[in-house]
């Protein structure tokens, strides 16, 4: 190490010795920073073997029919044609959309309101409330689902019992096609809204106090201030929250798997979970790879959207 270093020091950065033709400079640069290649190698190896290789392999698999044991059969685009004609593909796509509509607007609104409340000057224990926003988020989905499963039992579950006290008839939260998606939405709102409220809070703290003081001097009340200052200033953060929570929901399998098992009769199976069922319950790996590819394209577009938003926000 020491000898390598002293040699490096002699070709010190930007000293006359390392100037010259650009190729010589590149070479000197590579030699001087040789250790860097060693340091970044874990990522490169990992990326090639665990990210890129399976991704490409999955693209290939989408062109085959394969049960995971017998030799795969090349079927061309048949999996994609089948997808377009599969009523369950459309049911689960529809479920995903309904879940997004149930969750994303409610979450964005709640997160912004909670963040604005914590950010208000009269709240002194900001960290205390932030911690309770984050608490549901650090808890495993499986644990949350177990608790909700017991709470939401139709006959005798605590939620229905309490609703009964105020005269609301028992709701079939987990065993009816009408309510299963709502139950999933409640679980997800409970679990992840606080996280996004923290992101909103970080955004709110970036808004200069002077802006609010000016509005106050002009006689604007808290509601007026919220709509004419907070929301416009927070546009990029709000967009970020909308897109990221959309991505998270599209990729989420666990909620449905443990709360409702996707049922009854696929009413709460989102598309990603449908892919999982095809692969790991029905061993239809080629078809599952085709659905994964469709989701991959969708997620990449959504993520590119996020990145564009962030870029614009940074400027």
């Amino acid at each position: 190490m020491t000898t390598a270093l002293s040699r490096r020091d002699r070709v010190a950065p930007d000293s006359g010795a390392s100037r010259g033709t650009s190729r010589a400079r590149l070479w000197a640069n590579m030699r001087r920073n040789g250790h860097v290649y060693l340091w970044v190698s874990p990522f490169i190896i990992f990326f090639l073997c665990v990210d890129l290789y399976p991704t490409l392999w999955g693209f290939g698999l989408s062109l085959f029919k394969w049960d995971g044991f017998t030799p795969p059969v090349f079927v061309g685009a048949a999996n994609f044609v089948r997808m377009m004609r599969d009523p369950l593909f459309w049911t689960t796509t529809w479920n995903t959309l309904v879940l997004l509509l149930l969750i994303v607007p409610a979450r964005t609104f709640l997160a912004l309101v909670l963040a604005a409340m914590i950010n208000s000057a009269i709240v002194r224990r900001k960290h205390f409330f932030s911690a309770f926003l984050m608490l549901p988020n650090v808890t495993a989905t499986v644990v949350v689902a177990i608790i909700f499963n017991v709470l939401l039992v139709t006959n005798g579950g605590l939620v229905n019992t309490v609703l009964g006290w105020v005269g609301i008839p028992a709701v079939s939260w987990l065993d009816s096609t009408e309510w299963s998606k709502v139950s999933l939405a409640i679980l997800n709102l409970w679990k992840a809204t606080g996280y996004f409220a923290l992101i909103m809070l970080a955004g709110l703290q970036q808004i200069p106090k002077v802006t609010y003081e000016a509005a106050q001097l002009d006689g604007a009340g808290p509601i007026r201030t919220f709509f004419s200052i907070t929301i416009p200033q927070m546009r990029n953060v709000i967009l970020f929250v909308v897109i990221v929570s959309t991505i998270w929901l599209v990729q989420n399998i666990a909620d449905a798997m443990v709360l409702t098992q996707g049922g009854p009769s696929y009413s709460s199976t989102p598309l990603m979970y449908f892919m999982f069922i095809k692969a790991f319950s029905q061993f239809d790996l080629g078809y599952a790879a085709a659905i994964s590819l469709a989701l991959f394209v969708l997620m990449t577009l959504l993520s590119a959207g996020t990145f564009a938003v962030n870029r614009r926000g940074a400027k």
Partner: protein
Amino acid sequence: MKALFARPGNVVLFFVLWLMVFLSLAPFVFMVLGSFKTNHELISLTPSLLPQNGFNLDKYAALFAYWPFLRNLFNSVVVSSIVTLSVTVTSLLVGYSLAKFEFPGRGILTVIIIATLMVPFETRLVPTYVLFRSLGLINTYAGLVIPGMVTAFGIFMVRQFALDSVPDELLEAARLDGASEFRILRSIVAPILAPALVSLALLTFINSWNDFLWPLVAVVNSDMFTVSVALRSLADPSNITDYGMVLAAAVISVIPVLAVFALFSRQITTAVMQGSGRES
């Protein structure tokens, strides 16, 4: 106090915030109390707050008699520790390299990391499973930990932090003093980046402990299950018989994460807030 309630708006504000605190806490209270209750008490038209038979540990004893839950806990500790250590070290090495060194290939690496950040693991779940199965890694610790050992998120987080807080002058001065690059990393850079590394380690530990999807497909035998997978089997509606026992398992499973959160909630919330504007 008077000023606090001077305006009706303030009353509403504190009511909503305390309602939020109540709602985020109530399911945990229900879980803990429920782990001491029988099915009849849990599913009841006349619920009572406290368990009728007091706080005896029957459900906990039943759990350990029925299921290799200690082994599952051990597995989760092993997996989360290895993953956390690996993510922290590799994120430091790669993130610092990307932030502070000019080297051919740096641009393309940064682009790859951002691209990796964007594509969720779920979309390559099937081929990853097939790959690991063909390598004989199903049902092994190696199979459980490998997909989590390097994360683009961690690298990106350290990179951003290093760009902002490691001064180039300090590195140059150390080089002139003849310190080796590794020595600089260990004695100068790592201490400066320590707060970010601690936050990263905390978030990684929590995520890894809670991770569910990959362990579910990567292991088959119940004695190789992590805690989350074991919980899912215990709570499977087709064989759930004792709600109290499942809640007892849930209580034990959240203790490590809640302990970490109780000790470091400030670091964790701050990390979420700082990462927000930049990540992905």
